[in-house]
């Protein structure tokens, strides 16, 4: 049976699911200080898909690639606690301010450095930006096939995979060759919980930056246990064109951010004839309720 090399793309995001009144700053940006940083939920669905393949095909390795500030190493630890084999944290000031284009460029350049990969699995989208662009863009950068909205891996045999996609109006079954980028839908099975033994084993997994900051007492441990070192890659670790990184490489410009609070105060009854429905749509788009 074949063993696969899988990379899971994961992001640490502010928990926007339970926002309080301080969630937005006055200038309309997200107030990250009050929102706990969590493993992006659909990336956990993605991790679960990877771990299921690992359960099924012994010898398969699952590694996590994440980009973010130093504290995003937590994402890699969370992965280790659930059964991932390791991970890499992409962290550098030069990456700051990346939009989806710069992010996918940076991820793509990193992936190229990671040797032969069979499968890249990412969550459909992150709950902070909700763009669903990074997965597909990474596939484009690598020139790989991509399948989005995956809910289930129906069959994996040698270099062929059969996937179930969850779409708005039903499901679609896709047969596809590896290597492949797939993005996983939130309707896919939830990720398994952390494992006690792995937690005990990897609770001290740290990046060098974290070790320097925390004055860890057990320094000798890190020489004996290389698996506790979470590698950090900076801009110097990947081949790159500086104009495509970070803010420079991000054409997306945010004009303004508006905090839309939906408040239904009254109800309107419409009869259901086409004209009335069309009017309602126009009205809703105008008021930014939809669109």
């Amino acid at each position, binding site marked *: 049976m074949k063993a696969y090399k899988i990379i899971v793309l994961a992001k640490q995001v502010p928990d926007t699911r339970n926002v309080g009144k301080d969630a937005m700053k006055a200038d309309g940006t997200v107030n990250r200080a009050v929102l706990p940083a969590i493993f992006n939920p659909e990336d956990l669905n993605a991790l679960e898909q990877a771990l299921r393949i690992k359960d099924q095909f012994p010898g398969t390795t699952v590694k996590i690639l994440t980009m973010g500030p130093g504290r995003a190493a937590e994402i890699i630890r969370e992965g280790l606690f659930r059964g991932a084999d390791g991970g890499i944290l992409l962290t550098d000031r030069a990456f700051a301010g990346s939009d989806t284009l710069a992010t996918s460029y940076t991820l793509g350049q990193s992936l190229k450095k990671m040797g032969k990969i069979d499968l890249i699995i990412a969550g459909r989208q992150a709950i902070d930006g909700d763009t669903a662009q990074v997965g597909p863009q990474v596939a484009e950068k690598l020139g790989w096939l991509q399948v989005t909205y995956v809910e289930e891996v129906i069959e994996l045999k040698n270099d062929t995979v059969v996937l179930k996609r969850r779409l708005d109006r039903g499901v679609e079954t896709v047969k596809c060759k590896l290597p492949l980028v797939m993005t996983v839908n939130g309707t896919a099975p939830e990720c*398994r*919980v*952390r494992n*006690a033994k*792995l937690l005990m084993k990897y609770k001290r997994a740290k990046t060098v930056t974290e070790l320097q900051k925390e004055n860890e007492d057990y320094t000798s441990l890190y020489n004996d246990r290389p698996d506790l070192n979470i590698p950090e890659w900076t801009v110097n670790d990947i081949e790159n064109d500086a104009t495509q990184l970070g803010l420079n490489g991000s054409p997306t410009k945010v004009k303004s951010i508006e905090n839309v609070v939906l408040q239904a105060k009254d109800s309107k009854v419409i009869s259901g004839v086409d004209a009335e429905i069309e009017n309602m749509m126009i009205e809703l788009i105008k008021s930014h309720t939809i669109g």
Partner: protein
Amino acid sequence: MANFYTDNSELKFHLNHPLMEKIVRMKERNFSFKDEFQFAPLDHEDAMGNYELVLEIVGEVCGEIVAPNAESIDAEGPQVVDGHVIYARGTSQNLKALNQAGLMGMSLPYKYQGLNFPIVPYIMAADIVSRADAGFVNIWGLQDCAETINEFASDEQKEKYLPRVCNGDTMAMDLTEPDAGSDLQAVQLKATWDETKNVWLLNGVKRFITNGDGDISLVLARSEPGTKDGRGLSMFIYDKQHGGVTVRRIEHKMGIIGSPTCELVFKNAPAELVGSRKLGLIKYVMALMNGARLGIAAQSVGICEAAYREALEYAKERMQFGKAIIRFPAVFEMLSTMKAKLDASRTLLYETARFVDLYKTYQHISEERKLEKEERDEMKHYQRLADIFTPLVKGMSSEYSNQLAYDAVQIHGGSGFMKDYPVERIYRDARITSIYEGTTQLQVVAAIRGVTTGGFLNRIRYYEAQKISPQLEYLKRSLIILTDEYEQAVKKVVGTDDNEFIDFHARRLVEMAGHIIMSYLLLLDANREESFLRPAKNYITFAKAQVKANAEYIRVSELSDIGNYKFEL
């Protein structure tokens, strides 16, 4: 995200008891496992950190998966298909989650792929799981049986079975038969040695077997033909993979419906002998039962926690006569007394778990090296304490779980009688705790030795000698007075030297000791953490009334009165 560990700071408090330093050091053999096992702790803080992190996982699985599944499991229940048990869907989900989380075989040694946890954090996990679903904790908690294999089976058997338990195989202990319930000496299931196959074969029927279709079962069977008592019984391991046992039916029960209670038919089921022949009941079942009793105590405490929380929440929300019902003295008195009983049961549970930890760990160490005299004395000391505290905590906490479940329904009023609220299930689930693994009456039979030999009194004097802050001294003084009353009652009853009279008052005496011990433990908790002052005070008030009532009953009772209670048959 509901987490049943982090939302209950009292668990952390009990986990961090000062005696844990010694327990952990012994259990980890001075932290010497770290070179061989990467997940073994480096020092005390590291070990305690591990317990906390793992209990957080337990709390998460229980809050997010086990508790939400409890209702559907209760409605669906397990079934028998082709002689085997199919769990309710929620039960399978729970088991899968706990297994993926690595929470099976928690207390087993590292070398068998366990977590080498002391009993205290393991029992704490049981406490948490039970709060989530008291029926489910039965299945999960049967991993206890592995302790008996670890204690008495051969190395070969340990290597064969224990890693399987750590990887999710469920267990069962097959003791009860139609004519052997409380009286296990009457067990008849036959074990015969088959010369040609070179294996023991089991034939007969077992009844009321929790999780009877588990992967690995410990079976009590008669290996000595012609014998009639406990000395003819041996202990066997039956491995479901070999076949030979079918489930004839699952009982229809009042509560803990998700836990399949099976009637089993053994037909030439191959089995392995554990330890020595003839010691099945006398030695191994006693150990098995003590472990199981502590487990039922944890189950009871978990039920108390669930019942109290449900009642508290309802009482805060339910408005009558223009205000929340919790504002009425009749209701807040009930709730606070419930809380006091919950805290009293829990502090006694962890005290007992520490005794078990200390003596069992010494026992295991004694297999590796000769114990020093001091260590041997200490082992015996804690073993004696564990022997009397285990039935005490099982008896007291299971009765309290019933009382709390009753009161929780009462606080819900008519709604509590409906299936719309979890208290209805909690009430049914609680009922079994004071019956199985020995009824309360049988716990009293086991615990009365602590009364007659002075074991409880010695321990009470030990608590009395502990230094506490001056503000708490007045509470201690009232406990010293209660202890005098207890001593006098014991003197009177035991002084008659009449076994029937002692049995007649045994429960009253054991409960008096229990009330005083739990009061002291809460007082010591309050001395360590201020938040326990309220339950401590409330419990001591309650205990005073109970102890005095029992004392008065005994004071006016004469030997000659017993006839008045007897029935002519």
